[in-house]
């Protein structure tokens, strides 16, 4: 203790200097506490108190983020623990906006279920963790952030569980998640052993990786990918996601399928940009592993989706397939050129939120998420199913939607790298990426097929929540508009 005392004042100085950088996250923390207090004491008198407080906190945090984004300054704070650049800021804005939509989604859908204050609080902590993930390059910080997100997600999945399937989903998620986290931690400790340094983008860290024994570094990297793979649900760590996506309430599935991926993709692309810049055994190994994983993920996600009869389960496999596409983009990410990646992430968030809102809308009316139950409904609710079909077309990646532009930009990036390095792996990625979008047509089109091409036997009536349907329509229109004029969004990043 005494040895530290001369430094204490400089430590405190550093912390005080860093605090302004941390305003968006501090706001989230304060909102978290405030939401809990509101749900305990105020909700009794005004049942929207915790909801309003959450929304206000998210908006305020967004304001600070905008301030950071407009200043365009790179900020380093808390002893290199956080590192804020425009990439991180843009990603956090996407995370925040998606979270905002999903919080409204939760409120609209579950206002009559058990008290929601705690759920809002948990969503806020998850968002906090994700924010940290985007702006940290320190393994310790990253692990803490991953765990914050994981623990919050475990609670979210089990929050409404009333049936056996839902409890099973939550349990599976916890078990799988903890094991993956433990393995990742072991991998991190190996990395620390090799390098004696926890910041993955520092020269000494990379120098340590270069000198590490081949077998050990391979194992360490694979262990590290286990944790990241769990969060991104890429092959072979995708097995949990169909069960969890199907078992969890749709609002939670929306969150899990969309928001965590944004943050982890940002982290992974920063990591790969730092490590793949050098050409040594560890970086080549990592690149090949990622290529293989991306190809396998695209194939498995899309092929397994073919056989699904349940819309939510199908979307789980579809999101595995999209993870493969994202991995392609991550692999060719270069520092300071984040616009393609950010464009795809925002489009992905828009499409996913819209699809799940539509699925949920039908789930509430029909009591089922099976695709068969959509039979002949296209005629009864033409607006809903037309927008639904448009979003699915965007997920396939067909023009004139933004999904097409996103895919085109990613393919362009990969192609440019292929032209530079003539690596067969990149060519294989392109071919598999193109092929799987043909495969994906098959299962995405099951929904319009049932809705429009088949006739209705039972007569359900689809009741829509106007606010949610409005959000869904807004996303749909945005998807088309950004498909025709992608520069609206791309010029922002």
């Amino acid at each position, binding site marked *: 203790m005494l040895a530290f005392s001369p430094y204490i004042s400089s430590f405190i100085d550093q912390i005080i200097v860093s605090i302004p950088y941390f305003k968006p996250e501090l706001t989230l923390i304060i909102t978290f506490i405030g939401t809990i207090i509101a749900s305990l004491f105020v909700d009794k008198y005004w049942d929207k108190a915790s909801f309003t407080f959450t929304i206000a906190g998210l908006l305020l945090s967004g304001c600070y983020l905008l301030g950071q984004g407009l200043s365009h300054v790179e900020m380093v704070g808390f002893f290199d623990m956080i590192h804020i650049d425009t990439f991180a800021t843009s990603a956090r804005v996407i995370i925040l906006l998606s979270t905002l939509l999903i919080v409204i989604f939760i409120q609209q859908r579950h206002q009559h279920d058990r008290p929601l204050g705690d759920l809002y609080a948990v969503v806020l902590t998850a968002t906090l963790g994700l924010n940290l993930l985007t702006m940290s390059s320190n393994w310790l910080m990253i692990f803490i952030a991953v765990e914050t997100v994981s623990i919050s997600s475990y609670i979210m999945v089990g929050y409404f569980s009333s049936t056996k399937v839902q409890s099973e989903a939550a349990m599976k998620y916890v078990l799988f998640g903890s094991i993956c986290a433990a393995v990742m931690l072991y991998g991190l400790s190996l990395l620390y052993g090799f390098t004696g340094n926890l910041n993955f983008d520092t020269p000494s860290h990379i120098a340590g990786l270069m000198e590490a024994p081949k077998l050990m570094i391979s194992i360490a990297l694979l262990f590290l990918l286990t944790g990241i793979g769990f969060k991104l649900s890429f092959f072979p760590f995708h097995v949990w996601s169909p069960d969890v996506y199907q078992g969890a309430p749709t609002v939670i599935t929306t969150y899990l399928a969309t928001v965590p991926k944004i943050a982890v993709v940002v982290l992974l692309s920063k990591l790969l940009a730092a490590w793949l810049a050098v050409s040594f055994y560890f970086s080549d190994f990592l690149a090949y592993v990622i290529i293989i994983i991306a190809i396998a993920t695209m194939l498995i996600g899309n092929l397994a989706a073919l056989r699904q009869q349940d819309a939510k389960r199908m979307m789980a496999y579809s999101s595995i397939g999209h993870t493969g596409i994202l991995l392609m983009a991550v692999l060719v990410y270069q520092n300071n050129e984040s616009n*393609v990646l950010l464009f795809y992430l925002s489009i992905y968030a828009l499409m996913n939120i819209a699809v799940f809102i539509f699925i949920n809308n039908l789930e509430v009316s029909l009591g089922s998420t099976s695709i068969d139950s959509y039979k002949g409904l296209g005629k009864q609710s033409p607006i809903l199913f037309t927008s639904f079909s448009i979003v699915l077309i965007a997920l396939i990646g067909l023009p004139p939607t933004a999904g097409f532009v996103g895919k085109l930009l990613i393919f362009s990036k990969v*192609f440019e790298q292929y032209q530079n390095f003539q690596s067969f792996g990149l060519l294989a990625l392109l071919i598999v990426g193109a092929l799987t979008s*043909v495969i994906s*047509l098959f299962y995405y089109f099951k929904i319009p097929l049932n809705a*429009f*091409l088949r006739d209705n036997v039972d007569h359900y009536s689809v009741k829509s929540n106007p606010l949610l349907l409005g959000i869904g329509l807004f996303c749909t229109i945005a998807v088309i508009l950004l498909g025709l004029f992608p520069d609206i969004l791309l010029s922002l990043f």
Partner: protein
Amino acid sequence: MPILSLLIFLPLLATAFILALPTRYKSSYKYIALAFTAVQFVLAGICYVKFDASQTGVQDLAGYQFVEQIPWIRLDLGSIGKLEIDYLIGIDGISMPLLLLSAFVMLMAIGASWNIQKSPKGYFALLMVLNMAVMGIFCALDFFLFYLFYEVMLLPLYFLIGIWGGARREYAAIKFFLYTLFGSVFMLLIIVGLYFSVINPVTGAHTFNMIYMMNPQNYLGDSIFAWDGYQEILGISARLIGFVVLFFAFAIKVPIVPLHTWLPDAHVEAPTPVSIILAGILLKIGGYGIIRICYSIFPDMAALSNWWLGLIGVISIIYGALNALTQKDLKRMIAYSSVSHMGFVLLGIASLTAEGVSGAMFQMISHGFLSAALFFLVGVVYDRVHDRNIYSFRGLAQLMPKYTGYVAVAFFASLGLPGFSAFIGEAFVIIGSFNAASVGTGLPRWMALAGSIGILLSAAYLLWTLQRMFFGEIRLKGGESWANELTDVNSREQLILFPTLALALLLGIMPSLVFSNLNASVLNLVSFIQQFI
């Protein structure tokens, strides 16, 4: 006046109108669609009249007419360069006749859908979106824009076949969609490759402009599709791969044997108007794509591989005709006859002679409205008794004399009787492929010979059908009730059939109406490619 933009986007306005009108006015949808398509036809007619036939087009933007160019997407994307996408449209002698044909066939299709009962709102809205996409494809000179229209075309077609089609419509719709998409996603990869290879000489940015892609000087030296540098993908020349992938993407649409199997299914299941559009316009997009894109962007590879293209054409001619001989379903027979007749287009294009390419273009136009007429004629019987089996009918000539007259004229016109348009097209293709050996483009004479056997076979299946269905004693599967329902063609049907068949005769007698307009472009294209032989 931006005449081409009007031509493309008028149907979109019609869609908006149709969607905005409440369902209780549903009888007015077809009038809206008809009115807009008629205006479109007039606009296309103005294009035809004002067209300057001496302009060359193809690889020279100055030779295009009615050009509109608006910067559309401009983005700086760092390492992948500045994104430069233009809204660039224009027509030359190759696209202008097809544009007019599309407007004409669309008009026929609207006429054929007059009695649609099942949700007319969605039907006409989708038809108009399809109309827009088709017009856009023939006008687009920017590859991004072309691809956009090309894919947008698939969606309304899927629903048109899938919702208003026959018993196996789900299967036919998804099969059609998958076949085309399979070709086009790989086309997308080639587009990306071309984008990185080509530089706009004015701005120095990468570009999707097709015209720049046709000029060897715009290619970067070390790029994947570079002309001088010999780039390889897995040991095969990159330019050859690019050509082959693009060729197959369009050949699926033509369609060529063995990638044709979607066509009979789609035709049999599609409602009559959609069959008309499929045969009349969509197959031509395949031929158009090969000329406009494969041949013009990869002329060196076109010169290299035309023997194989000719072979594929000959196989399609013979195989399609033999298949048509054995069909029992009248619509299926005509679908296979389309495969056979479109084989001539491929053979003509492969000959790389002015006669052959002009013949291919002419064959596309002629087949466009003749096959549309044939499908319409099938629709006439099918509307009345919901049966298309050739053996269900006999002696129709006594029941429906006028109808038999139209069928006979249409059959004779399609089998290439001199005096009708198909004769001109097929004759020019055969002359072109026969001359190819003396010009030295590498197409052997036996291919021309095999093509003429195709004409013989088409006479066999068409005349045999005529004999089986229309002559002899009246014998109907449905007995008396059918005899009552099989009334002769009404005035609406005659209003559609008469101009179509008159056009076949007119173009058969005065082929210069088409030839004079496409001649300059075709000569330019042929000399552009022949320098690489």
